[in-house]
């Protein structure tokens, strides 16, 4: 084995950092966009066709670029934001560009699952759009949002492995530079095992949390 346990632990920390930070930023961007996407739809509380159409198109554009291309294409933006295009923090920028629009879509689909009757009740009570979103829509969608956020996080783990190859470090980087390029089977197996444990753990955690919240 060409790597020691310290290197593996360091890589694991880098992966967790990349996924954790990009998840937080993606939520900050994706959640409001997803809500906006839902509420501006036809027949919804603040129906606005121009906003919906533009937002919808922009999100589709980002969603249709494969991550490996986005990773490179976005380098100038990354430089602008973090000052460099290599390193763990530089990897976070493309990850957010990847996961933000993805989360917006997932949020939209969670909100679409909310019973229309509940929104009608909100309307009948004279709730403002703001109250409808925070008192009715989000609480009712919470369980489904957690399931979708879990899916997004797991997607981020996969993407972070690719981001690692452009200098971001992390488990994926280790697997490729040692396991693949230097034919170190043991390292390959260990990194894959770590990724499996990570994904399984997250999925179970998400499922349990969502179940705890879900009612009815």
């Amino acid at each position, binding site marked *: 084995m060409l790597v020691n346990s310290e290197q593996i632990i360091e890589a694991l920390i880098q992966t967790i950092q990349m996924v954790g930070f990009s998840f937080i930023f993606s939520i900050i961007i994706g959640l409001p966009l997803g809500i906006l996407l839902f509420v501006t739809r036809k027949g919804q509380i603040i129906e606005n066709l121009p906003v919906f159409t533009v937002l919808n198109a922009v999100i589709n554009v980002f969603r249709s670029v494969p991550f490996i291309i986005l990773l490179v294409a976005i380098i100038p933006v990354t430089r602008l934001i973090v000052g460099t295009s290599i390193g763990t923090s530089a990897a976070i920028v493309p990850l957010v560009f990847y996961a933000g629009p993805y989360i917006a879509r997932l949020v939209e689909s969670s909100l679409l699952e909310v*019973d229309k*009757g*509940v929104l*009608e*009740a909100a*309307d*009948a*009570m*004279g*709730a*403002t759009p703001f*109250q409808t979103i925070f*008192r*009715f829509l989000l*609480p*009712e969608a*919470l*369980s489904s949002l957690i399931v979708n956020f879990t899916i997004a996080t797991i997607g981020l783990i996969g993407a972070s492995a690719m981001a690692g190859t452009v200098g971001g470090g992390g488990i994926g980087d280790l697997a490729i530079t040692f396991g693949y390029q230097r034919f170190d089977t043991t390292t390959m197996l260990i990194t894959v095992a770590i990724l499996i444990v990570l994904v399984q753990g997250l999925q179970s955690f998400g499922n349990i949390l969502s179940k705890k*919240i879900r*009612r*009815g």
Partner: protein
Amino acid sequence: MIEFQNVSKVYNSGGKEIRALNSINLKVNKGEIFGVVGFSGAGKSSLIRCVNSLEKPTSGKVIVDGHDLTTISKKRIREVKKSIGMVFQHFNLLNSKTVYANVAMPLILSKVPKDQIKQRVSELLEFVGLGDKAQVYPDQLSGGQKQRVGIARALATQPSILLCDEATSALDPQTTGSILELLKKINKEYGITILMITHEMAVIREICDRVAVMEAGKVIEEGTVFDIFSAPKTNTAQNFVSTVMHDQIPPSILNMMERKQALNHIFHITFVGESTGSPFLSQLSKILDVEINVLFGNITELQGIPFGKLIVEIQGADTEVKRALSYMQAQQILYKEVIAHAS
């Protein structure tokens, strides 16, 4: 008070125009229970949804407690909505919140202080008979209990009007009865005007004061429950009334009538109020030389007034039968001869 003035509603769906309401003129008085009945697609929901502006009329005015909903601002409409409670067929409760939080919701939206909310919610839950269910989630309740939560929620802001769109249609007959009792109690104790929509005539008979019959976006008949049930004019109203007031001669008796020539003096007798209680049929057979044979009967109560329909055969000589009829006339009892083939 709710007033519809020439209200029309046209939906555009897939390039097609659907005229759900067609020049509706209707007045619901303060403190009454007003029912709207009609077949599926008649426009009942569209009508009730115009009252709290869930739907905007395409033309015409909707005036609620003096506010013309078609001209005031969005902000004012939200205020008016708080004086109108609504109860839904499928309850529309938040499944993610407890019974307490559901009932508290309208008060939270109105920014009522917490301690007042607490007091009001426990009062309401007590009123609807769910005092022990505050911390329970809706998925742990039966349909009837969910509707009680829905009603408590609708009453939270002390509205002057309660709208019920098929509030009992998802419930079994017994539960329906108890929910109707509750609505009656609300109307009596708080004087809240109730506008309710249903396709069940039994519901109308149970609690309404007045009723409108809708068909194809129009109100085709309107009147007190007593008038509509005792003398429905339109075909549709007659059909609805006959679902709860069977006044057709049963086929087995019709068969008998057709086979047996003897059965030829058949009368349809209507009793109203006092006369329902008097033993006048037995008096008839005592005073005159006739035998009374009751073929079919149905006695019910409409708005607290007894109301009955009987189909009887009067057996006896023609002259005696004639005397029997003039006796009935003198007693102001309505009767109509039934002709076997026509009925």
